């Protein structure tokens, strides 16, 4: 199956449609909530939460004794939240830094989850509790009920987002101010974090523990480069996320032996790369152009200032001087002379140059922050 075939099959084939819808929805909700994680500098929290969810899944199995997706999700949610609050408590109450707390909870919870999983596999009624499924995700196992669940979560997140838009926004950019205004910051914070945990837990089944953090971060990091407005960023991130989901599913369906999760992540990483390079204003190319332009401007200014110092000594400032004077001057070039001439600031021929009236005035005011308009 190639990509064209995939898109023609998309509307007729049930499985393909379900998976595509699922990954697109997941990408959208992750992009949306990931924006907050990126802006709050909690990028790696997603990674920690996704690992911390594992023991919850195992415990849910031990208690329920059946493979029940919603029980798994609930277990994952509880242990994800427990991990998150423990991280907070470590950072707040001890002198350990947040990176240590994240790494600790991530690996300790995961290790404990692994212990439980291997223990379960030895239990008589366990036929593979599906550790692998949650490690790497299997988009192919998505069914319609999963899609509906994702849909409701996305919708819920959207409604909460719109309801608490002002609170979220102000908490993001100025938490202290939010507190002084009398908002219950802890409540807003817990609300935001809970939705993030929920989105991560939903994503586990599709892209897996390891790659979940990229699902959360990549669309948001890409969207950040294109805008400085929060709502534009969130919309863009949701869009990038959905597109990564669809693109990744398309590519992985078109080749044999390609699991969906890693491909989605690579597509999302592609978006990040493109945004880093090409985004206007913030992108690397834009940065470079600005840098070169500033440097050239500076060179012209320098040359002009040098000329001004010479012209000043002469009674008639338009009196021509020899180009030879520039021999010891760093940063002089024919090109910059030509540029200055183009701007009508100087005139020059083979051997001599002179400032024009305009050039003299501009040079005199070069370092004057408040030039007086004549």
């Amino acid at each position, binding site marked *: 199956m190639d990509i064209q075939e995939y898109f023609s099959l998309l509307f007729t084939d049930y499985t393909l449609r379900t998976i595509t819808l699922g990954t697109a929805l997941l990408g959208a909700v992750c992009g949306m909530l990931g924006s907050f994680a990126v802006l709050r500098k909690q*990028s790696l929290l997603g990674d920690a939460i996704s690992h911390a969810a594992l023991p919850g899944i195992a415990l849910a199995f031990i208690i329920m004794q059946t493979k029940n997706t919603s029980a798994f999700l609930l277990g994952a949610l509880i242990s994800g939240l427990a991990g998150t609050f423990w991280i907070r408590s470590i950072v707040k*109450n*001890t002198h350990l830094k947040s990176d240590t707390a994240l*790494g600790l909870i991530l690996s300790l919870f995961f290790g404990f989850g692994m*212990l439980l999983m*291997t223990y379960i596999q030895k239990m008589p009624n366990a036929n593979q509790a599906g550790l692998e499924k949650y490690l790497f995700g299997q988009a192919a196992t998505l069914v319609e009920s999963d899609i509906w669940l994702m849909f409701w979560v996305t919708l819920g997140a959207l409604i909460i987002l719109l309801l608490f838009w002002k609170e979220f926004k102000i908490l993001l950019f100025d938490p202290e101010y939010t507190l002084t205004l009398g908002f219950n910051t802890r409540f807003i914070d817990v609300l935001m974090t809970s939705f993030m945990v929920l989105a991560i837990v939903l994503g586990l089944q599709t892209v897996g523990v390891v*790659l979940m*953090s*990229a699902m959360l971060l990549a669309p948001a990091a890409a969207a950040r480069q294109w805008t400085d407005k929060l709502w534009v960023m969130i919309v863009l991130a949701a869009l990038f996320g959905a597109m990564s989901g669809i693109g990744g599913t398309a590519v992985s369906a078109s080749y044999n032996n390609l699991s969906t*999760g890693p491909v989605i992540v690579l597509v999302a990483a592609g978006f990040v790369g493109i945004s880093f390079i090409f985004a206007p204003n913030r992108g690397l190319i834009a940065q470079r152009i600005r840098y070169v332009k500033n440097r050239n401007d500076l060179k012209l200014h320098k040359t002009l200032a040098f000329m001004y110092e010479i012209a000043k000594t002469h009674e008639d400032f338009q009196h021509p001087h020899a180009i030879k004077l520039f021999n010891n001057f760093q940063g002089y070039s024919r090109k910059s002379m030509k540029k200055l001439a183009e701007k009508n600031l100087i005139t020059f021929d083979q051997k001599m140059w002179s400032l024009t009236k305009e050039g003299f005035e501009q040079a005199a005011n070069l370092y004057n922050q408040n030039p007086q308009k004549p």
Partner: protein
Amino acid sequence: MSQPQIEIQLIAMLVAVACAIPGTFLVLRKMAMISDAISHSILPGIVIGFFITQDLSSPLLIVLAAATGVLTVVMVEFIQKTGLVKEDTAIGLVFPALFSIGVIMIARHANDVHLDVDAVLLGELAFAPFDRFMVGGTDLGPKALWVIGSILLITLILLFSFFKELKVSTFDSQLAATLGFSPALMHYGLMTTASVTTVGAFDAVGAILVVALMIAPAATAYLLTEDLKKMLGIAVGVGLLSAIGGYWLANYLDASIAGAITSVLGLFFFAAFLFAPHRGWISVWRKRRRQRIEVSMLTFLLHLHNHKEESERHIDHLQDHINWQRVRAKSVLRLARNNNMIVIENKIISLTGKGEQFTDEAIQHITSDKTTALESMKDEFFLFRG
């Protein structure tokens, strides 16, 4: 104990020590998450190495994988330097991308590669004794033992020869630079050591457990001490104890050894988190409570100092006017009375001579903005602390 059992415990202990040493410095340098990133992003290096050598413990594979680890650090730093995203975002972007490439490489060549991603991530210590190191027909023990043993040896040599440099560059990189040893060299040296250790350990204990073995002992030790040498010692000790405890726990439950070691590590950390003297949750909580009650008492004493009228000094006043709850009001009064600061007659509270002296001095310190001096005042005046 049978021979494989001893060998497994030996490997686990060596891995624990080899991880705890670079881990201590990672935690101190606030780079703990880098170890998580490295442990995942070495996958493509391992896969390429495996394509070439077909042997998970060959030196070439270790070099290639360690190079990918260092590459991760370089990429993270490059992205960070562009200023487009924060450091933690850079980490979160780089390692999943590299890991994905590794997973896809394995998937595309599933037929010619006998390598499982979950084997890399989770490892299986129980199988380690079966892969023997044979030289000319003589059995020299498990390969993993040799690999991790040599890595540990190199780490120890590096630690002892560069201890001073590491210490200075960890705590004061500017001082290190002015003294003439390059912080960058130390940084990349440490990163390389961490990468090599991760690679050497993954096939025994799995990449994620490596992270636990690096961070958890160091974090536990950091809660208990602030002396670098002691911290290294405690970290190594915690690592060793968890390795042995974890093995027997796994033996008892018949479950994953790596998972059991991590769980024991988790218990150690949890215990330190709760009970560590000075730094633990309980002692921090008690300190905060004490501080709160002592500040309340000081406020109340100052209030008494300012008011001569009886209505302001009535015992119910605390509840009615200052709005303190019963329990709090009681404990404040008890503390003040135990310290001989106040006397209560007919439900009217008045300051004693000592109380007057204490409040006078306190006011002096507060108005001259020397509030830190209050702590030494407390030592001087208080018979009982809050």
